[in-house]
C-alpha cells in the first residue's frame, strides 16, 4: 500500500464521518421541530391588514387598529387559542399604511398574502377600501373579517370568505328616522346630503326609501364628492323649514359639515350624520357638536351582557362591555369609539371561529364562521350564509348617540335610541 492511497482512504473516512454527523444533526433538528409542533410551542398565525395611518380616514382607522391590537395583546397574554391537536396558536399583526388610498390596498393585501404569509386578514377601514381588499382575499382563498365596512354590496358579489362585523349600510340611518318621528311627530320634510362614496351612497339610498315608507318627504337630496371642504353650496340649498338634515360620510367631511351647519345657523331641529358624531374627537367642535345625533355600531353605554345572551338563547363570548372599555382606556388613555370596538370584535369573531374549528385551516374556519351565532360586548354576531349575501352581518344592531350638555356643562355622549337601551332622552336642536 502506498502512502498516497492511505491518505485518500483517511480523507474518505473523515468525509463520511462528517456527512453522517451532519445527517444526524438534521434528523435531530427535524425531530425537535416535530416535537415542538406537537406541543404547540411557538406556533404563530399572522393577522394581515392595512391601516390608514395617513389620509382622510386616519381618525377612524387608528381607533380600529387600536381595538384590533388590544385583542391580539389580550388573546396572546391568555396563552392564545387552543386547537384540536392540543397545540396553542398565538397571533402576530402584520400591517402597512394604505394612506386611505384604494389603489394601495390591493397591492398591500397581495403582499400580505404572498410575502408575509398572513393566515387571516382583517379589512382596512371604510367600505371603499374593504371592497378592494375583499377581492384579493377571495382570489387567494383567505378569510377576511371586515371590521370597519358596512356596505351591503360587497356581500352581493358571491364572495365566500368575507365576513362583516358592522350592521350593514342599509340599516344605518333607519333608526334616525324612527327617532325623529318620536321626537317630532309633526316632522314632514328632511334633507339628505351624503358623500358620494360606496358606503354613504348605500346608506342614503336606503334612508330615502325608508323615509318615504314612513311618510317623510325628502325635500332635498344631493351628494358631495369625497374630500369636499365647502358645504355652503349645499347648506344654502336646504329648503327653509326642513325638520331634519341627515347625511355625511366619514369623519373628516362629517365634522366639517357639522361645523358649517352650525356656522350657517341652519334651523333644522334634528341633525344626524354618519360616522363622525360617535367619535370622541367630534366633541372638539364644541357648540357645533351639541345636539348632533349619530348612528353608532357600539357605545360604552351599551347594555350587552351574558344575561342578555342567555335570554336570547345564544352563547356569550369574550370580555364584558365594562372590561373592554376599561382595558381600552388603560392602554390608550381615551374613550373607546365604535371603530375601536369593531376592531376588537373582528378579532373576537376570528378567535371564536378558530377555537370552534380547532384548526387554522381556512375551509374549517369558514364553516365555523358560517355557524357563528354569539353575543359579545359588541352585540350579537351572526352572518348570512345564503349565496346571494354570504357573510353579511345579520345579528348586530345600531344604537344612536347624541352630544348633550351634562350636569357640569360639558359635552357628553348619550345613547338616545333605541328606546330600550337609551341612557338619556333625545333633545331637539335649538339654534
Amino acid at each position, binding site marked *: 500500500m502506498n502512502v498516497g492511497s492511505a491518505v485518500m482512504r483517511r480523507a474518505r473516512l473523515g468525509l463520511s464521518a462528517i456527512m453522517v454527523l451532519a445527517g444526524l444533526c438534521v434528523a435531530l433538528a427535524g425531530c425537535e421541530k416535530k416535537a415542538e409542533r406537537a406541543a404547540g410551542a411557538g406556533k404563530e398565525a399572522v393577522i394581515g391588514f392595512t391601516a390608514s*395611518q*395617513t*389620509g*382622510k380616514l*386616519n381618525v377612524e382607522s387608528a381607533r380600529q387598529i387600536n381595538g384590533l391590537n388590544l385583542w391580539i395583546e389580550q388573546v396572546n397574554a391568555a396563552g392564545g387559542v387552543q386547537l384540536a391537536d392540543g397545540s396553542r396558536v398565538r397571533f402576530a399583526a402584520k400591517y402597512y399604511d394604505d*394612506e*386611505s388610498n384604494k389603489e394601495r390596498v390591493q397591492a398591500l393585501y397581495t403582499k400580505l398574502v404572498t410575502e408575509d404569509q398572513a393566515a387571516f386578514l382583517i379589512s382596512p377601514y371604510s367600505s371603499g377600501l374593504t371592497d378592494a381588499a375583499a377581492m384579493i382575499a377571495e382570489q387567494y382563498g383567505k378569510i377576511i373579517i371586515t371590521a370597519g365596512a358596512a356596505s351591503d354590496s360587497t356581500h352581493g358579489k358571491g364572495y365566500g370568505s368575507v365576513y362583516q362585523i358592522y350592521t350593514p349600510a342599509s340599516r344605518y340611518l333607519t333608526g334616525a328616522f324612527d327617532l325623529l318621528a318620536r321626537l317630532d311627530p309633526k316632522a314632514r320634510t328632511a334633507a339628505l346630503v351624503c358623500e*358620494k362614496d360606496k358606503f354613504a351612497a348605500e346608506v342614503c339610498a336606503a334612508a330615502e326609501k325608508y323615509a318615504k315608507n314612513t311618510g317623510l318627504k325628502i325635500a332635498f337630496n*344631493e*351628494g*358631495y*364628492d369625497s*374630500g369636499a*371642504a*365647502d358645504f*355652503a*353650496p*349645499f347648506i*344654502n*340649498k336646504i329648503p*327653509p323649514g326642513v325638520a331634519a338634515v341627515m347625511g355625511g360620510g366619514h369623519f*373628516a367631511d362629517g*365634522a*366639517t359639515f357639522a361645523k358649517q351647519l352650525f*356656522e*350657517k*345657523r341652519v334651523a333644522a331641529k334634528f341633525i344626524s350624520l354618519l360616522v363622525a358624531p360617535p367619535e370622541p374627537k367630534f366633541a*372638539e367642535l364644541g357648540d357645533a357638536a351639541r345636539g348632533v345625533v349619530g348612528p353608532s355600531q357600539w357605545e360604552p353605554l351599551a347594555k350587552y351582557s351574558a344575561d342578555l345572551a342567555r335570554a336570547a338563547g345564544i352563547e356569550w363570548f369574550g370580555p364584558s362591555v365594562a372590561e373592554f372599555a376599561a382595558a381600552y382606556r388603560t392602554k390608550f388613555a381615551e374613550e373607546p369609539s365604535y371603530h375601536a370596538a369593531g376592531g376588537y370584535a373582528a378579532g373576537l369573531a376570528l378567535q371564536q371561529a378558530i377555537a370552534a374549528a380547532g384548526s387554522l385551516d381556512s375551509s374549517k374556519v369558514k364553516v365555523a364562521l358560517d355557524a357563528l351565532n354569539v353575543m359579545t360586548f359588541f352585540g350579537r354576531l351572526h352572518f348570512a350564509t345564503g349565496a346571494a349575501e354570504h357573510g353579511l352581518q345579520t345579528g348586530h344592531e345600531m344604537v344612536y348617540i347624541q352630544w348633550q350638555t351634562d350636569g357640569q356643562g360639558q359635552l357628553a355622549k348619550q345613547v338616545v335610541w333605541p328606546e330600550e337601551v337609551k341612557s338619556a332622552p333625545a333633545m331637539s336642536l335649538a339654534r
Partner: protein
Amino acid sequence: MLRQCAASLLDGLLLGCVYGAAAMGLNLIWGVMKVINLSHGALMTAGMFVVYGLFAAAGLNPYLALPVAALAGWLLGLAIYWVAVHRVIDAPELASLLATFAVNMILVGLGTWLLTGTPRNIDCDLGAWRLGPLVIQGNRLAAAGAAVVLAGALFLFLRRTTLGKAIRATADNRGAAELMGIATSRTLALSFGLGAMLACTAGALIATIFPFTIASGAAYEPKSFVICVLGGLGNPLGALAAGLLLGAAEGLAPVFLPVGWTPALEFGLFVLVLVVRPTGLFGKSGT
C-alpha cells in the same frame, strides 16, 4: 329662491376675493416673466401649513400668522426662482413650465412624506352674524377683507414704489429696462417672490375657512388659471375682478344646478373666454 340666491352670491363673492388674490400671484409671474408657474398650488399648500403649524404648535392666531406665511412664501419664491427658473428664463416657455412642474412635484412629494395626507383644520371660529335672511360668517369675511387689503397693497406697490415701477418696466420690455439700469435678474426674482407670496398668503386665508390636506393646493390651482384667463393674462388687478366673477358664478351656479356641475361650468367659461376673447374680459385687446 331670492334668499338662496343672495346667500349663495355672498358666499361666492367672499370666497372670490381669496381666489382673486391667489390668481394675482400667478398672473404677476406670467405678466413679468412669461412663466406659467405650475408650483402655484404647492405654494398655496405651503401657506396653509405655515399658519396651521404656528396655530398648532404655538397657538398663534392664524390671522396674526399671515405675515409669517407671506414672508415664507416670498423666500420660497426667491429660492424657486434662483434654483429652477432663472436658468431657463430665456428658453422656450415649455422649459420653465417643466421646471415649475418639477418644483411642484418635489414640494408635494416632500410635503406628503413629512406631513402625510391627513386632513388638518384650524379651529378658529370668528362667529357669524344674521343680516335679515343672510348669515355672514366671520371667517369668510375676514379672509375676503385680508385678500382685498393684499390686492390693494400690491397695486400701490406696483404703482407707487421704485421697485414696483422697475417690475412694470421689466414686464413691458426687459431689454429696455436693462438699458435704463434696472437689474432685471433681481427684479424677476423679486417678482417671482411676490407671486409666491400672494399664493402662500391666499392659501393661508383658505386654511382659516376650510380644512385642508397636502393635496389641497392642487384643487385651487385650476381656479387660478381660470381666473387669469378671465381677467386677462398679465393683468393682476383683472385677476382680482375675475376672482370675484368666478366666485359669484361658483356661488350662484349651485342654486340652479347640482353642486357637482360647478367645475364643468367654470371650465366651460374658461374655454368660452379663450375662444371669444382670448385676451380676457379685462385684458387689453391685441396684447
